[in-house]
């Protein structure tokens, strides 16, 4: 057994790529080694800003020799066939063996693939790995042709056994593998040789390099927490930043500073964002006031002055950054106080949302109209919802959001409060963007829900109107996320609405915006001197037709508008809903069975039905009833196909011959008396419970009675009875779609 150690030493690897590179190095190397016939016990990859390393333990020293028998042509087969066989096996006639076969004598070749020594295999696999490494972005340097994330300087590749360490012979584009590496760029830049992984990790540590990124992250976190604690502060958790910072240093040294008094009035999110985005600082909070008062920077070295120079430099840069932030904040407040939040958004008309869907101001107007329409459905006051929608995007024109786009919405809510707007409106500014992802929370305040739904539905209908739908993995406008957002908003708040009806008007509004932009474009074309006469006539004609369509009020346009797209958008919602429900453990066939029922664009109703059906099918009675239903349905369908009639005539209990048959009649009467009112109340659980009571009578009926008897009158009556079973069961869901 041997241990393999590889280090690829380069110029600084971007922090965000290091974890992926570790995975890729480990996967490509171990896959390659295994494919070449070696086995190993364990493998682990590491990254620092300047190196990728892989340690493989318990690697076999040889790949096994493989013997493979191959059957060739028959003895006496044409010369060409035999020659071909020899060529493909690389053997000569004398190496072949002749064996008896069912069809006569055939040539048999035994092909032996000699096992190879580990160094040769490692060399080959590593070269291939380096040349095909999946960096998200790679580059060339100097006059070489090799691609790496940044210039690759050295390769360390050794195999060590009890007998000692051996350099694996390898040379890639002039870089020859060796057994040396270097320490910290500034604190221990000299080269040193290593004999194996433990030696490597230990010597690196002496040379001021912590190899394991998790160890670096842990060190940073512990140091920073202790320093904050010592000052009576608490560190603000930020896992993303911690991983990134651990990828920027080989020898982390945490330094703590205080934020200048003059900046403490800024919103904590602004302080935190500015420090994180620009300088990769952690924030420290005063647990009593909740204010951010301190910062932690992570240096990459120790210094004789214990970091005093470094901290002072960082503090100075921070002060400059926060001066900018305070400048933005004060300017924004001035604007809001003089012209209000809606006034701040006045410039949105100059910001294009999409060239076919008008400006951000056009969009805000559509959202406001829609929020007003949605408001009664979610228990919000229409005027308040419309007001919130009109200001919700205003902060896009603020200087602060111009600098930190990730603060959109949040700044709006600060500015809304400063402008004296109602609290519901302030909340809607930030909450109308939610849910931002599958793990983000869903707003519940009615005004926020109205604006959030309006915002997302406008996006969806808009891109549907200009035919920019997601295809395959391409979804540049995040429409799937928007649809899931609508689904979660509707379900999370139990909103009852027909999506189809709700979306028709916003869809039309987007179509109108789109056609108006087309109209403007054509008019512009017409005003340009050089167009030819024929195309001019064509444009005039097109303009007239556009004019015709766009004339009159919104209601008038709606009445003559043929909308084929909104139903397709509902189907898109259904697809997203299926994914969403599947994640919650509801089977796709159960969803299909409910989708086939009327009112399926009312998602709350749809899900209520699906949940009830899913629960029902998990019970004993449910599963068995489904079998009974299917049996009845199959017999009936076959009989109907054969006889060419539909057995929908009510069955007559008087024609019942057996007690089981009579009992089924009674059970159906009983069940139907419960199911109909339960369905009217949308109490699916109760309806299904009533249906479950049919299980025993149906089973008994099939046990005791033969449907296809010779007596045609009795047969017909029984088929009509089966029809009653089908009708009763199908009221609840399209059970034929359910599998099993």
């Amino acid at each position, binding site marked *: 057994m041997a241990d393999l150690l590889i280090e690829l030493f380069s*110029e*600084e690897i*971007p*922090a*965000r790529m290091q974890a992926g590179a570790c995975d890729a190095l480990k996967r490509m190397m171990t896959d390659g080694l295994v494919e070449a016939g070696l086995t190993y016990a364990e493998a682990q990859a590491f990254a620092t*800003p300047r190196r990728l390393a892989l340690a493989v333990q318990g690697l076999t020293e040889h790949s096994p020799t493989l013997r493979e028998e191959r059957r060739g042509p028959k003895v006496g087969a044409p010369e060409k066939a035999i020659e071909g066989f020899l060529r493909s096996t690389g053997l000569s006639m004398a190496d072949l063996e002749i064996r008896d076969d069912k069809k006569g004598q055939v040539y048999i070749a035994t092909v032996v693939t000699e096992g190879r020594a580990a160094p040769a295999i490692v060399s080959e696999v590593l070269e291939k790995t380096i040349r095909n490494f999946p960096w998200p*972005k*790679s*580059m*060339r*340097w*100097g*006059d070489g042709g090799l691609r790496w*994330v*940044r*210039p690759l*300087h050295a390769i360390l590749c050794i195999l060590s056994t009890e007998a000692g360490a051996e350099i694996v012979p390898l040379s890639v584009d002039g870089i020859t593998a060796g057994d040396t590496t270097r320490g910290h760029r*500034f604190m221990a830049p000299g080269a040193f040789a290593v004999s194996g992984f433990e030696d490597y990790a230990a010597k690196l540590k002496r040379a001021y390099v912590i190899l394991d990124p998790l160890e670096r992250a842990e060190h940073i976190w512990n140091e920073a927490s202790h320093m904050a604690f010592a000052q009576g502060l608490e560190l603000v958790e930020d896992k993303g930043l911690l991983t990134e910072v651990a990828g*920027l*240093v080989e020898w982390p040294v945490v330094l703590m500073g205080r934020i200048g008094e003059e900046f403490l009035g800024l919103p904590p999110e602004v302080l935190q964002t500015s420090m994180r985005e620009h*300088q990769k600082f952690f924030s420290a909070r005063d647990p009593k006031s909740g204010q951010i008062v301190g910062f932690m*920077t992570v*240096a*990459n*070295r120790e*210094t*004789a*002055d214990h970091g005093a*120079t*470094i901290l*002072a*430099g*960082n503090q*100075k*840069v*921070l002060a*400059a950054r926060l001066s900018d932030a305070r400048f933005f904040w004060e300017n924004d407040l001035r604007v809001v106080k003089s012209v209000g939040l809606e006034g701040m958004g006045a410039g949105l008309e*100059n*910001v*294009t949302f999409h*060239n076919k869907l008008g400006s951000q101001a056009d969009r805000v107007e559509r959202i406001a109209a829609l929020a007003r329409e949605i408001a009664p459905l979610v228990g919000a006051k229409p005027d308040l919802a419309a007001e919130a929608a009109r200001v919700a995007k205003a902060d896009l024109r603020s200087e602060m959001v111009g600098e930190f786009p990730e603060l959109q919405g949040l700044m709006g809510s600060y500015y809304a409060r400063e402008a004296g707007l109602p609290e519901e409106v302030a909340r809607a500014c930030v909450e109308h963007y939610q849910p931002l992802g599958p793990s983000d929370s869903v707003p519940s305040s009615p005004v926020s829900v109205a604006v959030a739904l309006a915002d997302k539905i406008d996006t969806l209908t808009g891109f549907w109107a200009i035919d920019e739908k997601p295809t395959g993995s391409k979804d540049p406008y995040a429409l799937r996320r928007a649809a899931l957002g609508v689904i979660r908003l509707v379900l999370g708040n139990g909103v009852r609405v027909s999506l189809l009806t709700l979306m028709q008007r916003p869809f039309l509004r987007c179509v109108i915006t789109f056609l108006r932009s087309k109209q403007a474009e054509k008019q512009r074309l017409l005003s340009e001197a050089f167009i030819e006469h024929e195309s001019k006539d064509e444009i005039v004609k097109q303009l007239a037709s556009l004019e015709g369509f766009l004339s009159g009020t919104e209601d008038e346009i709606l009445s003559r508008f043929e909308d084929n797209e909104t139903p397709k958008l509902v189907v898109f919602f259904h697809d997203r809903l299926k994914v969403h429900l599947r994640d919650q453990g509801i089977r796709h066939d159960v969803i299909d069975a409910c989708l086939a029922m009327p009112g399926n664009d009312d998602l709350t109703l749809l899900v209520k039905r699906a949940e009830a059906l899913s629960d029902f099918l998990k019970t004993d009675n449910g599963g068995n009833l489904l079998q009974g239903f299917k049996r009845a349905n199959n017999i009936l369908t076959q009989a109907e196909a054969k006889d060419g009639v539909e057995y929908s005539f009510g069955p007559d209990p008087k024609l019942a011959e057996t007690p089981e048959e009579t009992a089924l009649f009674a059970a159906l009467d009983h069940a139907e008396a419960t199911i109909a009112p339960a369905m009217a109340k949308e109490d699916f659980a109760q309806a299904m419970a009533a249906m479950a009571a049919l299980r025993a009578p149906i089973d008994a009926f099939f046990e005791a009675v033969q449907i296809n008897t010779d007596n045609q009158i009795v047969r017909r009556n029984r088929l009509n009875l089966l029809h009653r079973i089908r009708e009763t069961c199908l009221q609840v869901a399209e059970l034929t779609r359910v599998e099993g």
Partner: protein
Amino acid sequence: MHERTDSTSQKPQCFQEIILRLQNYWAEKGCAILQPYDMEVGAGTFHPATTLRALGTKAWAAAYVQPSRRPTDGRYGENPNRLQHYYQYQVIIKPSPPDLQELYLGSLRAIGIDDTLHDIRFVEDDWESPTLGAWGLGWEVWCDGMEVSQFTYFQQVGGHDCRPVSGELTYGLERLAMYVLGVDHVMNMPFNAPDARIPLSYGEVFRQTEQEYSRHNFDGADTEKLFQHFKDAEAECQRLLSFDATDPKFGGRANIMAHPAYDQCIKASHLFNLLDARGVISVTERQAYIGRVRALAKLCADAFVQTEAGGATT
């Protein structure tokens, strides 16, 4: 020699000393010390010594100061570190040498940044110039959290793959100098030695021009004329490149006007920046204008690689 080491290990006294030390350092490392290009450009990269010389196969090493203009950054001389006219120091070496990072760190030591006391970091920052159709990978270099340089390995210029690859270093001189000299406002920075017979601050040299140009950039520049000049520069660039390569007055040999055409491309780029500062270019038009300048840069790059300096063998 001994004396020299002593003087460079001391902190510089003023802005120009930092420039002079960089000039000396890179001259010692074998770069041709060029002078600024005599046209208005947005960054040192626009100098033909970088943009054009990064193309083709010929080896190249140059360093120079380049006055750079960013009309939208005008702040009437009041902002502590934002200027519409500032200096960049630019180094370009082709092919990029394997010790370029070490050479760069040496230049920081030369201007008095002691890397045993400071925290110097290479933080991912890929460079892209949509107007030049150019991109590269590299870092911004941080000194104690402050960006002091841009470090790029050019991959493409004017739509052409760079083979070999050039290494490019750009120092924002004012910002770097303010840091080294410990100055908080650019206008207070000593330009020449504080003990010179006539000591001058950066403000004494540039405050008034910042004020004048800020007004010019935001209010004064005649936008109609600028639009016209843009069209003219665009047409002139295309016209110069439409000439037949052979030059009758040059013995019928090839003589492509790649550099004169590129001057027009630079002009168009600066005119676009001015129009942008005047706020007369909408978001959608913006992309279209950038595309037009890029098309010119690409034409110039296509032409340059046909010339001798561009490595064409005739």
